[in-house]
């Protein structure tokens, strides 16, 4: 089971409204390389990991990704909370307002709704290669987002989340090497 702590994994204090950045970084919430997809991917794959190292790592990284989902939601909230309808329309997210008001909806940066686009094949090697690729893709998206802003309040969490992709990639790689040398 999961339990909640009333704090973020890394603090987010965005003071400046930025609707364009909200439109772009929503993809790391609900896009193909986003945190929601990562959380579900790992929490699904943990059941078919062949030993307890794999189960533990997929369980614990999957849990961490849920905390990243919350960080992305918080960023979107703080970037948009004082916006007028006019400003939302001007920034190209008027259609989010049509369906959801000031609430969130997980999409990519084009507004395409969240889809479970991750691969879980049940083949441990295929899944871990997938996970390593996914962490690399997410790292790249964070880098692209970092290139698009100068706001230190946004850069801090983006740089931090990007680094987590690197840490997870390395751990998945080590788990993969373990299975490669133990699988007959």
């Amino acid at each position, binding site marked *: 089971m999961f339990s909640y*702590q009333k704090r973020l994994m890394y603090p987010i204090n965005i003071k400046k409204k930025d609707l364009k950045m909200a439109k772009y970084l929503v993809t790391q919430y609900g896009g193909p390389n986003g945190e929601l997809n990562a959380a579900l991917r790992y929490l699904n794959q943990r059941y078919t990991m*062949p030993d*307890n190292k794999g189960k533990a790592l997929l369980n614990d990284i999957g849990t961490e990704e849920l905390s990243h989902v919350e960080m992305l939601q918080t960023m979107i909230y703080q970037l948009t909370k004082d916006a007028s309808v006019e400003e939302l329309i001007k920034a190209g997210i008027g259609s989010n307002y049509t369906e959801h008001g000031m609430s969130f909806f997980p999409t990519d940066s084009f507004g395409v709704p969240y889809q479970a686009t991750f691969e879980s094949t049940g083949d441990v090697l295929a899944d871990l290669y997938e996970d390593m690729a996914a962490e690399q893709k997410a790292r790249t998206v964070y880098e692209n987002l970092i290139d698009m802003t100068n706001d230190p309040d946004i850069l801090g969490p983006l740089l931090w989340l990007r680094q987590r992709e690197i840490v997870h990639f390395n751990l998945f790689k080590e788990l993969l090497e373990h299975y490669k040398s133990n699988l007959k």
Partner: protein
Amino acid sequence: MNYNDFMETYYGFPVAGEPIPSNNNVVLDSPDEGFLKGNMFKNTYEPYKNYQYMRLNPINEKEKLLYEISKYSFATHDLNLYLDLYQNDNSILMLFNDYRKKTNDLINEYETKFGPMTISTDDEKGIPFKWASNSFPWGGNMNV
């Protein structure tokens, strides 16, 4: 067929597997730096271009305490992920236990002073129900 036999047959090794030996390449960072970087392992830290990781500036007692919790909790979590793979690394396990205890002590201190951070707190004494009446973490100001 029991589970271990199943694993032997289809994966080629029993569920317990062989312990992965310690990773001798590990160079740990301090909780202070590791938390800000998002990586407790100095040898795998990869900066992006010339960007420096951000410094955080907690301004009051509540923020300072929350910052300490974040640091030690993060350090515990990153060692947790490492230990998932390297279960027999005793020196990392001892450090994990130090950080875990420090985190728990700090959370207790925070809850005594500022109300529940966890629903399992012992500090929920009398009305109003503090869990639902103190602030939520998305409001800014170090998220307290």
